[in-house]
């Protein structure tokens, strides 16, 4: 694995094992993710890439029978230590889900949900952040005149960008994306990909994707996972042009998966 000594690593996963009951879903996974870069996780279904992603904001805590050993540091803080405030962690490490999932509330109420939960009541402050977040998700121009309309009335791709705006409003450092385009058509997908490249100027993104072209188009680093193991992790160009591992090569050339 090629390392640049000057790079700033925001996520550092060391020797991570994860069990669902007796089933081991992640086996000794190591991974480093650089600040302001897009890191993609690829691999066939069931390889553990989504599980790994959910470790980063401790969403796996919500699943019963999950046991984790190893270490994950975000900004040099061990996120599984007893002193970690999970609420703060989740604000700092936001998540975009597979299906667009706005609340059955207005567009505005969706965007400011995280702020209200955090106790912000000041109307001007909420308005400002809402506009900034919607602009950040390239949605402001489409919705500025109908902020009181239900979020669920928007077309799917705008719903997904609404979810991104809702996330930007809580000002995270890291954005996790779990197959964010899998329910969108190609044009909407392209738009989200462009948005991701824009977003990485300010945020660090980790994306799980089924779509290898997507990984090669948007990401700077790619990890290939198989049966719970990180088979290869490298710069995206290297993974897609000269993979070091035979298994990676077989997967990206379409021999299986």
């Amino acid at each position, binding site marked *: 694995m090629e390392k640049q000594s000057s790079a700033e690593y925001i996520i550092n996963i060391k020797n991570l094992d994860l069990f669902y009951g007796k089933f081991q879903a992640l086996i000794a996974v190591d991974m480093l993710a650089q600040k302001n870069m897009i890191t993609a996780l690829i691999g066939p279904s069931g390889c553990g890439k989504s599980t790994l992603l959910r470790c980063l*904001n401790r969403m796996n805590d*919500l699943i019963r029978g999950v046991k984790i050993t190893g270490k994950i540091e975000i900004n040099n803080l061990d996120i599984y230590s007893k002193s970690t405030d999970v*609420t703060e962690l989740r604000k700092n490490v936001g998540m975009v*889900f597979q299906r667009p999932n706005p609340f059955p*509330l207005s567009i505005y109420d969706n965007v400011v*949900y995280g702020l209200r*939960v955090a106790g912000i009541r000041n109307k001007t402050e909420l308005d400002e952040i809402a506009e900034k977040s919607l602009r950040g998700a390239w949605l402001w121009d489409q919705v500025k005149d109908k902020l009181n309309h239900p979020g*669920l009335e928007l077309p799917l791709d705008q719903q997904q960008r609404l979810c991104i705006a809702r*996330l930007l409003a809580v000002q995270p450092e890291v954005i996790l994306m779990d197959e964010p385009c899998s329910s969108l058509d190609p044009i909407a997908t392209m738009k989200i990909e462009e948005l991701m490249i824009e977003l990485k100027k300010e945020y660090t993104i980790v994306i799980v994707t089924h779509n290898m072209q997507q990984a090669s188009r948007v990401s700077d680093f790619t990890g290939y996972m198989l049966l719970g193991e990180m088979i290869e992790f490298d710069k995206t160009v290297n993974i897609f042009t000269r993979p070091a591992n035979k298994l990676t090569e077989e997967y990206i050339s379409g021999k299986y998966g």
Partner: protein
Amino acid sequence: MRINPKYTQWGAVTILTSATIFTILILVFIIFFILEKGLPVLGLSFLTENPQEMGKAGGIFPTLIGTIILPVFALLIATPLGISTSVYLAEYTKETRITKVIRFGTDCLAGIPSIIFGLFGYIFFVITLGFGWSILSGGLTLAVMVLPTIIRTSEEAIRAVPNSYRKVSFSLGASRWQTVKKVVLPNALPGIVTGIMLSIGRSIGETAAVIFTAGSSLRIPSSVFDSTRTMAVHFYILAREGISSENAYGTAATLIIAVLFVNLLAYYTMHRFIAKRS
């Protein structure tokens, strides 16, 4: 021999349709029968006047008061208790043997005949706690009686809220309580209201649990320690003691109209709420 699916389809539709029509006809017949006998005595004076000669003459005004105050009292106690319990069961506990026992227990309680609750209320609230025949005893007994219904319907409604809402809420840094308050309960509201409606209907129509606990005084109560009589109890006494079948049917008609009105009002309010939210 195989039967042509066309015929079985036709047969199924015929049976299902006739069953539905039959059910509706029975309902309509009962309502029509009671309204026909009751409406002639029903009028403003019937509703606003005090009864005379134990209800043989005069109106039913005190029983109107009793019918409003007892269910309101019961629901004021049972609703917060029931919803809190259902939130606890659905959101805060893992599925263990204990929750299964609690759920089984509430299901059993929901199926117990109301006279048993009446007896319990009589022994516990009226005698042991010394509340006497009173709105307090009756309201508490009714609350205990409808609690299982509220718990189970609310729990089902809460469980039916899509899990993705909870996940998103947590991922935005909300605590479980904030998630419950801001996402789960508003979305479970229609189901919860249905449970409360069923409970109001049951309390309004209840006799056995009420007659032993709230008594059957025809005076207008001045505090929760006074006895009162509901329309259902009034109807029961008028009919059973053979005091006046006209006034009994008049009371029954009022009761049916009242239940209908409460239901319509609740559904209207709920739809307004839903329309406002989305």
